[in-house]
């Protein structure tokens, strides 16, 4: 976790709403998949707060890629970030996916929804690099799927919800033998995450969900990004998405 500067070397359109930004740092930049950075989007403090964006994947030792969806003022400003200009960010932040402890040949499942597919790109590559050979990826999009080419995996399924009338989790239940999987990694809208947790409940496997919450500091100081997490059979506490997460074990997450 450091205050850093990266130079924008690319900012290009992926779909109508989604764009990708490549940032090059002066020094090698270490991170693990699922971590994010907290970006200052406006020199003029409009908006005031930084915006958390996952590191989608690594391009080289000094270069990372972000995938951003335009939502409001902050992401709209990012859309207009100019190539060659510097960006001030804090990172890498948070605890990413935990990919230790799986057998190399164990079937692993990655589930993404929309812009939630961003950090999963890097995850799929990391898993591949570490020799995991049976990684299944299922990504769902409301419309206009994107990003397939950036994943590295055993099987890649893409769902265009506008055409197929089914969700990522429907595909899992219908077409995959879910009992096989030794680990599940998911990032996407909350309803999707809820259903992922349902499907794999009580299987005794690691189901890791990447959560989102509004952030102010991004570093653990403000307690703004609280999510309810089980801390015991009858206990729970508010944990911070920014430092305790964004990735949490599904069994611990309390959706309200």
């Amino acid at each position, binding site marked *: 976790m450091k205050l850093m500067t990266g130079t924008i070397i690319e900012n290009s359109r992926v779909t109508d709403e989604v764009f990708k930004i490549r940032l090059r740092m002066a020094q090698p930049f270490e991170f693990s998949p699922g971590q994010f950075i907290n970006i200052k989007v406006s020199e003029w403090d409009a908006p005031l707060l930084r915006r958390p964006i996952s590191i989608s994947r690594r391009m080289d030792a000094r270069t990372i890629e972000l995938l951003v969806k335009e939502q409001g003022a902050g992401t709209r400003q990012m859309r207009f970030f100019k190539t060659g200009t510097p960006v001030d960010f804090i990172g890498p932040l948070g605890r990413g996916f935990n990919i230790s402890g799986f057998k190399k040949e164990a079937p692993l499942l990655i589930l993404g929804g929309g812009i939630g597919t961003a950090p999963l790109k890097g995850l799929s590559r990391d898993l591949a690099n570490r020799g995991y050979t049976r990684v299944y990826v299922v990504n769902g999009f409301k419309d206009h799927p994107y990003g397939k080419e950036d994943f590295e995996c055993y099987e890649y399924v893409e769902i265009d919800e506008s055409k197929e009338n089914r969700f990522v989790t429907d595909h899992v239940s219908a077409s995959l033998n879910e009992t096989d999987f030794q680990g599940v990694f998911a990032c996407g809208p909350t309803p999707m995450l809820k259903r992922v947790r349902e499907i794999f409940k009580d299987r005794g496997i690691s189901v890791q969900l990447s959560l989102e919450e509004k952030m102010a*500091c991004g570093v653990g100081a403000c307690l703004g*990004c609280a999510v309810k997490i089980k801390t015991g059979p009858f206990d729970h506490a*508010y944990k911070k998405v920014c430092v305790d997460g964004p990735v949490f074990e599904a069994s611990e997450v309390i959706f309200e």
Partner: protein
Amino acid sequence: MNPLQVNLGGLILKNPVTVASGTFGFGREYGEFFDLSLLGGIAVKGLTLKERSGNPPPRIVETRGGMINSVGLQNPGVEAFIKEEIPFLRRFDTRIIVNINGDEPEDYARMAMALQEADIDSIEVNISCPNVKSGGMLFGTDPEVAYRVVRQVVENTRHHVMVKLTPNVTDIRVIARAVEEAGAKAISLVNTFNAMAIDIQTQKPVLVRKTGGLSGPAIKPIALRLVYETYSAVKIPILGMGGITGAQDALEFMLAGASAIALGTYNFVDPLAAVKTLEGIEAYRKEKGLENLSDLVGKAHR
């Protein structure tokens, strides 16, 4: 003598730049960005007698030039703080300001007693938190209750007592005088403004507790006015805050009457904001040829 030193009613700060309670955790996070010994003081996250889990999310709404928070005093409780956080903070050459909170007037005295032996530099009596069901801000809007709460703390502590006021009042001077009379050694202000946001899709308040506290640059002009008014009403010194983003803002607060200042929300925007503020203040001091920075305090009244 150190030209940046300021005296906050017996609490000597080596420079006037502190960080505001609730915006700096217990220092650990921002300690990764700079040496905490650079700060005049650190006000820690608001504490209560027992551990508190805080309010349900969402806890933050961004607004124009500011943010509304509804954290609700999530904290580990005063005992855990003493055991786990003071030793960390003491490694730095800076003042430890302990923000205390209560549901009932007596809780504050209990907190003071719990902190009696603790190695801290000041107790900041928070009678101005808008984010809890009982207590908090209510105590800070009624001069008699404010007097009672502060009096009980003063009588039960050996520490320096500072009182944090709410801006949500008709006349801040009345409250300020009450806490001065009660024996407070300094006043800190402002805490956040009661505020609200509504989600036009769900047609409900965004925050579960409906209202929260507004902070950040948006409130600066009001906070500055409140510091200015308070300065003319009491003799005890003021720790000024509310929307400070850098040296220019900080100097305005000092000219208005603040002996020291605190950065809150802007730490989130720039983790180095407090350090830069200090540098900017020092540059101004030199430019103006001031031997003692504290000669600035209240100068806008003259």
